[in-house]
C-alpha cells in the first residue's frame, strides 16, 4: 500500500506559521470527526471498530461517484448549482455509509457481542480487510479524482490575512466540523435517544431493563458514527482532490489515536484529541521533519497507551487483560 500524500500539504518554505495552523486545524477537525465513530462504538460495545477507517474510505468513494453520475446526467448541473450537487453527494455518501456501518455491525459484530474481546477484534480486522478489497475489486486500484469543477469556486475565493490566504473551502471544512460536533454534542446530551445511548454505554443490562432496545441503540451508534466518517471523507476528498481504496487504513489509525489521546469512550475527548493530533502532526512536520509525517501519530499512540491509557479526558480505567 503506497500511502498517498495525505491530509497535509508540506509547504515548508514559507516562514509563516498561520498556514500550518490552518492545515493542522483541518486535519484535526477531520480526525475528530472520524475519532467520534471509534469512541462512540468503544463507549457502548467496548470494542475497537477496526473497519471504521474503511467506512470513511467508502464515504470518499460514494461522494465522488455521486458527483460523477450527476456530471454524466447533466453537465449543466455543475455550472448551475454546484452547492446543491455537493449537498446531494453528501446526502448519498452519508446515507449509504451509514448503511454499510449498520450492515457491518449486524453481520460481523452482533453475534460476537458476548464473545471474548479478541474474537470481536479479529472479526473487525477481517471486516476491514474485506471492505478495503471489496472497494478495490469494484472500483479499481487507481486513484479516483474528485471532479475539479465542484472545487474551483471554493478554492478560488480566498480571504487574505496578511501574507496568507485562506480559501473558502478551508473555512467551510473547519466550520462544518465544528457544527457537526456541536450538533452531535446536543444530540447526545439533550435528546431522548442520546440519553438512551448514554444509558446503554453505562450498563447494557440495566438499560434493557428500563425498556431501551439495546440492538437498536447499537445500530444507531454505528449509523451515526459511519455518517460522520462519510461526511469527513467527502470533505477530505474535496480538499485533496483524490481518493484511493487504501486511504482508510492510515487515517483510521490516526483517528483512533485521536480517540485514545482524548480518552476513548469520551465524546468531547475525541474532539479534543483530534484537534490536538492534527496540530501536533503539522507542527512536527514544520519543526522536526516531513519525512516522518506518518510516524508522529504512531509515536503519540504508543506513548499515550503506555503512559496514560485513560487519555486526557477519560475516566474509564483501561483494566488489565
Amino acid at each position: 500500500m503506497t500511502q498517498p500524500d495525505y491530509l497535509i500539504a508540506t509547504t515548508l518554505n514559507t516562514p509563516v506559521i498561520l498556514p500550518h495552523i490552518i492545515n493542522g486545524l483541518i486535519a484535526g477537525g477531520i480526525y475528530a470527526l472520524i475519532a467520534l465513530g471509534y469512541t462512540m462504538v468503544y463507549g457502548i460495545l467496548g470494542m475497537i471498530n477496526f473497519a471504521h477507517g474503511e467506512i470513511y474510505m467508502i464515504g470518499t468513494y460514494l461522494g465522488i461517484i455521486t458527483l460523477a453520475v450527476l456530471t454524466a446526467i447533466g453537465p449543466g448541473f455543475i455550472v448551475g448549482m454546484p452547492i446543491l450537487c455537493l449537498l446531494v453527494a453528501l446526502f448519498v455518501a452519508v446515507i449509504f455509509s451509514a448503511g454499510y456501518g449498520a450492515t457491518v455491525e449486524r453481520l460481523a459484530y452482533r453475534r460476537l457481542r458476548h464473545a471474548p474481546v479478541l474474537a470481536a477484534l479479529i472479526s473487525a480486522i477481517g471486516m476491514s480487510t474485506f471492505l478495503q478489497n471489496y472497494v478495490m475489486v469494484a472500483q479499481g486500484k487507481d486513484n479516483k479524482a474528485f471532479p475539479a469543477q465542484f472545487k474551483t469556486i471554493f478554492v478560488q475565493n480566498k480571504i487574505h490575512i496578511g501574507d496568507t490566504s485562506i480559501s473558502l473551502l478551508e473555512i467551510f471544512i473547519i466550520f462544518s466540523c465544528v457544527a457537526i460536533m456541536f450538533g452531535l454534542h446536543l444530540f447526545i446530551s439533550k435528546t431522548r435517544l442520546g440519553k438512551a445511548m448514554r444509558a446503554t454505554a453505562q450498563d447494557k443490562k440495566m438499560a434493557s431493563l428500563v425498556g431501551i432496545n439495546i440492538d437498536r441503540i447499537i445500530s444507531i451508534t454505528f449509523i451515526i458514527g459511519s455518517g460522520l466518517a462519510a461526511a469527513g471523507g467527502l470533505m477530505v476528498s474535496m480538499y485533496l482532490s483524490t481518493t484511493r481504496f487504501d486511504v482508510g487504513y492510515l487515517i483510521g489509525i490516526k483517528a483512533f489515536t485521536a480517540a485514545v489521546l482524548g480518552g476513548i469512550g469520551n465524546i468531547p475527548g475525541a474532539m479534543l484529541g483530534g484537534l490536538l493530533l492534527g496540530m501536533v502532526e503539522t507542527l512536527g512536520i514544520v519543526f522536526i521533519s516531513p519525512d516522518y509525517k506518518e510516524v508522529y501519530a504512531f509515536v503519540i499512540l504508543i506513548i499515550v497507551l503506555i503512559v496514560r491509557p485513560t487519555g486526557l479526558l477519560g475516566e474509564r480505567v483501561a483494566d488489565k487483560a
Partner: protein
Amino acid sequence: MKLSFSKVPMYALWFTVLTFPLVGIRMMDDKTVQFRLSPLIIGGVVLFIGALYMGLSRVKFTFISDAFKGIAAPLKPVTAGLAKPPAIKIELFLLCLFLLILPAMLSGKYMNLAIDTGIYIVLALGLNIVVGLAGLLVLGYAGFFAIGAYAYALASLNFGCPFWLGLLIGGAVSAVFGFLVGLPSLRLRGDYLAIVTLGFGELIRYIFKNLPNITGGEKGLPNELIRGEIHHPTIGPWVLSQPIYYYYLTFIFVVVTVVVLERLNNSRIGRALIAVREDELAARTMGINATKMKILAFVLSAAWAGFAGVLYAAKIGYITPEGFRFEQSALILAMVILGGMGSTLGVILGAVILYIIPWIIRDQLPAFQDYRLLIYGATMVLMMLFRPQGLISSKRRKIELTETEEK
C-alpha cells in the same frame, strides 16, 4: 441466527441497494460512468444463500448428516491422532519422509513456493506462541520479522557476518525489541496491546524507510550505496545457495519450531501461560508471575520472527520495507486463526492453506488475484462467527472461545 422466510427477499433487496453505488457504478477514465448489473448478482447470491439456509434449517436432511457421519467415522481416529501431541507415529514419520523426498519432484517456482510456505509456517507458529498460548493479540508481527531480516542484512553487508551468527543476531535483536515493546504494553488490556503492536509494526517500517544512509530507505538492501550481497548459509567450505539447500534448511527450521512449541505447550511454562490466558487472577493466586510469563511469550515469539526474518533475507537476497507491511501481519494472523489458535498442527495447516491457495490463484488464475485479500478478510470474519476455534482446535482453547461472558 433467527431468520424467517419473508425476510430473505428483504435482505437481498437491502444488499442490492447498498452495493449499488459502489459496485453498480464504475467511473471510467474519460469521466463517464458505466452502470453494471453486479449489485443484482449480489442480491441474487444473498437470496440464494438465504433461501438455502432457510430450506436447510426447515427440512431435516438426515441422510446428508448421516453421510457425513459415514465419511467422518473412519477419519475420526486420524483427526483425533492429529490433535494429540505427536508422539513418534507412523503417520508423522511418513509425512516427514514424503517432505524429505519432495524436492526430487519439485522444480523452479514450486520449489520456491515450498520454501516460502515453510518460512510462513515458522512465522505462523511463532505468532502462535503469543496469540495461541498466551492469548495476546499482536498485530505488528511483520515488524519483528523485518527487524530480524534487517539485522542480518546489515550485519552481513557491513561486517560480513556469516549466516549462523546472523541467525543468532537476528533472533536476539528481535527478542530485545520484543522485550522493549512488551514490557510497558503488557500491562494494557488485550485490544490496547493489539493497537500498540500495530503502531510498533508500522513505526519500524517507516523508520527503515526513512533512513536511506543506514537501511537503504525505500530502495532496500543491498543498493548502490550499501553494496555487496547478503550471505548464504555455509557449512565448512560449502555455500548453501541452491534452492534445494534452502528447502532442507527451512524443513529443519520447521521441525525445530514444532518440537520447541510442543515441548513448550506441555511444559510448566506453557501450562502457566495457558492458565494466565484463561484467568489471570486465578493464575496469580496460584503463584504464577503473570507479567513475567507474558513477557516471556512475547520475547520468544519475537525471537522466532527474527529467525524467520534472517532465513528470509538470506534466501531472497534483497529486502525492502514494503515487504513487511500490515498486510503481512494480517496474513500471518489469519493463518493462526484459520488453523486454530494454540494448535500446532492447525496453525501449520492454516499457513499451508493461506499461502498455497493464493499462490495458485496468482499463478494459474491471474484474473482472480485481486480477490485474494477479500477472501482473507471474509475468512477471518466467518471463522470468528462460526468456528472461532479454527479448523483443528486445540481442546483447551476451544473451551475459552466458545464460552459466553456475562456482561
